[in-house]
């Protein structure tokens, strides 16, 4: 009885192996599995809905201090820009002859701010800020634009809940748009 069971189990196992082999034949068997820890270390992109935002939080007040230390050299004392992009103002200018595109006037999603600051800023030392400081600087830049209050503390949930002024300002590509035939 036990032997028969063993035999059956062996057969099932053999069939499974054959099936796996058949499937593997379609592949080259190149590369190795990515471990969850490896993926966690590199999987840094944040969705526009805030998905994948890490734990932690940061205040506008803390953000002001981090900004003064890390950001003003390129973006100016109050985000007015310099070597780096202007970050503040420009709301209401997009339909004018001189549109001013900033975080406040142009960026459609607030979580993108966290994503970009963490991955690329400050330019001389990207991925060096703690998650708390990235939340804080995001909060400070949003407060400079009047989008969150000066006493705001942002975390994954509250950053995702921020509605950016230009959220609905984007349209899909209609090209070819010039009809010259």
């Amino acid at each position, binding site marked *: 009885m036990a032997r028969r069971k063993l035999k059956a189990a062996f057969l099932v196992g053999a069939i499974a192996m054959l099936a796996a082999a058949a499937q593997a034949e379609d592949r080259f068997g190149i590369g*190795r599995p990515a471990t969850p820890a490896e993926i966690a270390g590199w999987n*840094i992109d944040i969705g526009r809905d805030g998905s994948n935002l890490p734990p932690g939080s940061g205040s506008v007040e803390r953000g002001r201090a981090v900004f003064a230390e890390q950001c003003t050299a390129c973006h100016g004392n109050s985000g007015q820009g310099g070597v780096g992009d202007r970050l503040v103002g420009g709301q209401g200018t997009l339909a004018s002859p001189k549109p001013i*595109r900033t975080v406040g006037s142009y960026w459609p999603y607030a979580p993108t701010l966290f994503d970009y600051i963490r991955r690329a800023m400050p330019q001389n030392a990207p991925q060096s800020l703690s998650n708390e400081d990235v939340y804080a600087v995001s909060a400070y830049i949003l407060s400079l634009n009047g989008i969150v209050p000066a006493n705001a503390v942002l975390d994954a949930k509250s950053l995702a809940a921020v509605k950016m002024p230009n959220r609905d300002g*984007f*349209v899909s*590509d209609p090209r070819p748009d010039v009809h010259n035939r």
Partner: protein
Amino acid sequence: MSEHTTDKRVREASRRRFLQAGAALAGGSAIAGVAGSTALAEQGNNLPPSVPEWMKTPGDPMGSQPYGAPSVHEKGVIKNISKTLPQYISASGRTPLQELDGIITPNGLFYERHHGGVPTIDPAEHRLMLHGMVDRPLVFTMEDIRRFPSQSRIHFLECSGNPVYTKPYGKTASDLVGLLSCAEWTGVPLKTVLDEAGVQAGAKWIVAEGADAAALTRSIPIEKCLDDAMLVYSQNGERLRPQQGYPLRLLLPGFEGNMNVKWLRRLKVVAEPAYSREETSKYTDPMPDGTSREFTFYMEAKSIITRPSGGQKLTTHGFHEITGIAWSGHGKIKSVEVSLDEGKSWQQAELQEPVLTRALTRFRLPWHWDGTPAVIQSRAIDETGYIQPTLAELVAVRGLNSFYHNNAIWPWRIDANGEVTNGQA
């Protein structure tokens, strides 16, 4: 006189002129770069009937240049990099299109755009991670990537901001559309690598991320990834240059340059785009009504005359070949038309084979310049029937602040002295 006879006469004239110039050597170039012109000495001891000095002594021995460099007399043919950029970590450098022939851009002159500098990556420590909506998340070494069946294909690559819509417009072809190059790329079709991981149902996009200091991130529609997208490790026969993404980059033929992520370290298969900074606050095209177009991937059909072009000078009347390049992100170039009369009439240029999909195509038109001022320009028509528009036609639809995807016809003005300048300036 039939057109055929005219063509034949032009060809004959061209051949004679070529032979004369070759025999004389001192005839000088009929087109001279105004800045880089090296006047040939008429009285030199190297000219006939004397024996040139480089025939009287042996040249450099084998091995004097383990990796070859251009002639010392071509030192002026370099990337066109502005000397007044606010910073050089996130910046671009242009291909000197007006100095090049054919359709392949030499690797050292390939245009560059990077957003966090050029990283120095040890290929032994570079990994590509493929994860997200796949059955088997995988990590690949560079050796792994090169084990896959390979392909080589010739494609152009162009930055979407090439040029902008507003003045001051550039002086040379390079100033205008030098964020454009073309190479033979070798790598593995992205589809092959995706099949290895098993893309799951519902996957619509792939987020690609670079291993540079900008960790540059763009979202690519899955259709493109399964079509002609490639993971590239070689360019024009040698490994990618660091400026082009060494050791691994994404190539999306016909899509705007920024999406062709360099130093590729990660591909994440997802249901919706990342809406990264690059694809929302940059690389979106502002319209006059305040809206902006997003996900404007394709580079539409375009062409430019590279000789004669801005900054050059016609030093003689008589025969000149007009030549330039045409390209389209939507496929092959069907025809190129050239106007010699400010756009009033157009004639077919000859296309140099091979005419490849999403590659530069070289065109030529024989021309006799009689010394009267002229405005010359080219327009490309691709296999979809799309005709390259004028700047006025583009601006009428998009306004002046659209910034990206300006594929306008660009005229060159030739004055009575033969000086060639930007016809829009």
